[in-house]
């Protein structure tokens, strides 16, 4: 038994700030009357800003770990945490009008959102199986509750139920994989794991492959890779759009972090094995995601399938197994989150009291009534399709480059061919906005609050800005894996 050593608390300062502030929000919100709910939002955004400041304050030059090596703060963690905080701020502000219009403008939305974000931050820094699981469950449980948040909606309850059951199963699979690894190596620490696994690689190849399979399956469930994607379209469609916006953006970044911590930091000796699994998952995700999205008429559902195809691309970057590939996958994930916050953000604007805008046709003729918002959605769509000069092109380019570099040219060819299929349904959205006539009962004008207007515009233009100057972000991604 070693003596208790006071851990270095500083690296976890952002998480502690966030936890303390979230509890404060929770309590303060109780005493606020409904018309003062805006204060909760303000406080929540302040929480995120303070967390952001804390992240920047403690950002190490290299990397520090704490809590007996089970918590790490490195370049990867810093960049991803900043991205998560900024995107969550956007989500909170975009959601406000939607929540008011649908009579669900409650403090719990923000409290749950903050707890979910806390879970993500923990996932990003987690360096032991236990921490990863802790963060993941904190995130997932908050999300289940957020989906079911609009209790009057049957669809939402059904989605929450589906997500909960499947999510619990995925967690179970992940835990099972973790337990086998623990059985083989006797550790739950990622650093120790990586050294112990290489020692075991020759002795216990079958058991290791078995455990790895469960980890990969659990991970694929959470990321939504085919064939573990079934929950994703239903959850996207059934959730209130403000929650879909949240699910579709920041948690992807946390999911990416989890994949990196588990597979790259912990199990890099099994890279050959998981890369092969990822090839199958990636090709299947790009194929199924892109092809099925064509048949969708519901915008949220279409974006769900598009997410699946983008997960395929992210997996491509990871499976290359090079620093270059991880950096490109990271770039892809962050820019994807930024892009989808634009498309969902505009969709949220179109919602009004008693009317859920969620079909592609609800965007009909948007260029006639609101050319600026139509332009923002068009930029987001072209970015998702990977058409230059948007950032999506550069994200695809860097992933393809990583894949070609490890001599998987056929995989790159498959990826670009599937993205041509994908282009079709993105173009259809542009077509509906620009070429179709306005549907009569939707002429009502959108009057978003000034802050939403500015943030959404900056958000949308950043897709072109990052497309022209990708180095602004890419430099950080490369440094994270240097």
């Amino acid at each position, binding site marked *: 038994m070693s003596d208790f050593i006071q851990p270095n608390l500083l690296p976890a300062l952002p998480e502690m700030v966030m936890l303390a502030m979230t509890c404060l929000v929770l309590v303060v919100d109780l005493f606020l009357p409904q018309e003062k709910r805006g204060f909760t939002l303000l406080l929540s955004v302040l929480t995120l800003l303070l967390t952001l400041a804390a992240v920047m304050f403690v950002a190490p030059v290299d990397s520090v770990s704490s809590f007996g090596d089970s918590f790490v703060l490195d370049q990867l963690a810093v960049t991803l945490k900043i991205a998560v905080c900024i995107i969550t701020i956007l989500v909170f502000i975009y959601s406000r009008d939607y929540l008011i219009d649908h009579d669900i403008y409650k403090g719990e939305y923000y409290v749950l959102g903050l707890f979910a974000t806390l879970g993500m931050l923990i996932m990003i820094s987690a360096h032991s199986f236990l921490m990863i699981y802790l963060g993941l469950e904190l995130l997932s449980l908050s999300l289940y509750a957020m989906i079911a948040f609009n209790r009057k909606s049957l669809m939402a309850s059904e989605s929450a139920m589906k997500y909960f059951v499947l999510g619990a199963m995925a967690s179970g699979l992940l835990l099972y994989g973790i337990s086998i690894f623990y059985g083989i190596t006797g550790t739950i620490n990622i650093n120790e794991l990586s050294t112990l696994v290489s020692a075991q690689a020759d002795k216990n190849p079958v058991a290791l492959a078995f455990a790895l399979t469960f980890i990969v399956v659990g991970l694929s469930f959470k990321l939504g890779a085919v064939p573990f994607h079934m929950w994703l379209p239903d959850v996207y469609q059934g959730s209130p759009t403000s929650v879909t916006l949240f699910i579709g953006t920041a948690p992807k970044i946390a999911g990416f972090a989890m994949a990196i911590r588990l597979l790259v930091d912990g199990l890099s000796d099994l890279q050959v094995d998981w890369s092969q699994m990822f090839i199958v998952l990636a090709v299947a995700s790009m194929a199924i995601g892109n092809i099925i999205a064509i048949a969708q008429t519901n915008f949220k559902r279409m974006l769900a399938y598009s997410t699946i195809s983008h997960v395929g691309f992210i997996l491509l970057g990871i499976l290359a197994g090079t620093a270059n590939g991880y950096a490109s996958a990271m770039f892809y994930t962050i820019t994807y989150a930024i892009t989808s916050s634009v498309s969902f953000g505009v969709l949220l604007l179109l919602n009004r009291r008693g009317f859920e805008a969620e079909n592609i046709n609800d965007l009909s003729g948007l*260029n006639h009534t609101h050319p600026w918002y139509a332009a923002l959605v068009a930029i987001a769509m*072209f970015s998702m399709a990977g058409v230059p*000069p948007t950032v999506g092109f550069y994200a695809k380019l860097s992933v393809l480059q990583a894949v070609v570099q490890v001599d998987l040219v056929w995989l790159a060819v498959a990826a*670009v061919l599937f993205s041509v299929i994908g282009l079709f349904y993105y173009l*259809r959205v542009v*077509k509906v906005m620009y070429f179709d006539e306005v549907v009569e009962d939707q002429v009502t004008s959108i009057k978003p609050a000034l802050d939403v207007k500015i943030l959404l515009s900056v958000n949308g233009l950043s897709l072109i800005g990052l497309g022209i100057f990708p*180095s602004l972000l890419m430099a950080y991604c490369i440094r994270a894996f240097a």
Partner: protein
Amino acid sequence: MYADWPLLSLVIWTPIIGGILVLFAGDKEPSGARKIALLVSIVTFLLTIPLYTQFNTDTHLIQFVERESWIPAFNIEYFLGIDGISMPLILLTSFITVIVVISAWEVIQYRASQYFAAFLIMEGFMIGTFSAMDSILFYIFFEAMLIPMFLIIGIWGGANRIYATLKFFLYTFIGSVLMLVALIYMYNKSDGSFAIFDFHYLPLTLTEQVLIFLAFLVAFAVKVPMWPVHTWLPDAHVEAPTGGSVILAAIMLKIGGYGFLRFSLPITPDASAELDWLIITMSLTAVVYIGFVALVQQDMKKLIAYSSIAHMGFVTLGFFIVFRIMDVDSTAQGSALALEGGMVQMVSHGFISGAMFLCVGVMYDRMHSRQIADYGGVANTMPVFAAFMVFFAMANAGLPGTSGFVGEFMVILAAFKASFWIAFLAALTLILGAAYTLWMVKRVIFGGVANDNVKALTDINKREFLFLSLLAIAVLVLGLWPDPLVNVMHATINNLINHISISKI
């Protein structure tokens, strides 16, 4: 004095920024948007003139170079420069854009600012494509120009515009993504450079070359378009508004031809030599078969679209017949004739097809029909217009004295050195081209007044006279005195021939 200026950047970004300004000028006061658009396009054209006057014709090296590191992570550079191949095409682009802006002046009333903005932004992208010396920069411009064209056809197009514009976008996109993979592959082979000239000297095995060649072929053949991937063009042309058709025919198609010269031939010379039969077959099919297809068209725009495919067949024929010429003729003269013929044909076709589409546009604005059957005896009511139309039709048929003759003649002459039968088949165009163009002119322009609608036609106004006469002058000057054009590309073409005659294997 201009050498110190970042002239190419100015030429690229002036129209793009101008286009954004036009967009913000909005539709409340459309004349404001129009005036800004005209001003921007003229300024851009004036800016391109020094590119010609200051151009050094003695060297094949690229000029007006701008080279800055852009995305250091992948060594992508903001690398611009022009040589004898790209410079004429840039001038063509800026000239045609001015014409397009004038031609749309009163015609486009619906969302006019967006219309003008789209054309200006596209102009910037197209000039960027011609002057990019970094392959990723090239690719970005190459792809980005699809977006404004997609919107132009989709918003201001005809009845079947949505089908046409989606087909256009998907066809061109599928072609270019394979090229992207090829570029990335070469980037890895060349130890991390995307510069086009590094690719030129990159040693590649024959298998690699063939695969890369095919990837480029898909991209550029769709763009040119070559038979059998030409089917998007008639659809796009028919549905596009007049300005869209003009830009499409006059410039966008040239990017395919330019791509062959800039990428396919120098990067994969052995594969090009190995597979030249494929391109020659495709080109001759375009010339002969598509010529016959054009003959039976009922729709004027469709007819001109098919005639564009046939004429572009000459371009690709000229580019790829050089390997056969080199086999029999050791001097570079014959090969140079073929390549320069293809280039002249590209520039000339830019003027002529643009003019033909504008002529159809002039009639369409009055009659709202493109069907040949709806016309007849237009010469009686629109004599001035008829003179222009007949002149351009003659040029399209390759009448000596017009620019249409020069390019075709050079390519046929060069083809004779390679093989009599190739030259014979290519020369059929002189008959076919005359047949389909003049027969259309006969039915539309000549004869008695066909119906009351034609009777009510009014002749062209000053604005229409202006843009048609500008094009007529260009066609005539280039036809009578092609030297200024041919001279600028001599050095570059000769260097290209030297380059491709050395095997990379």
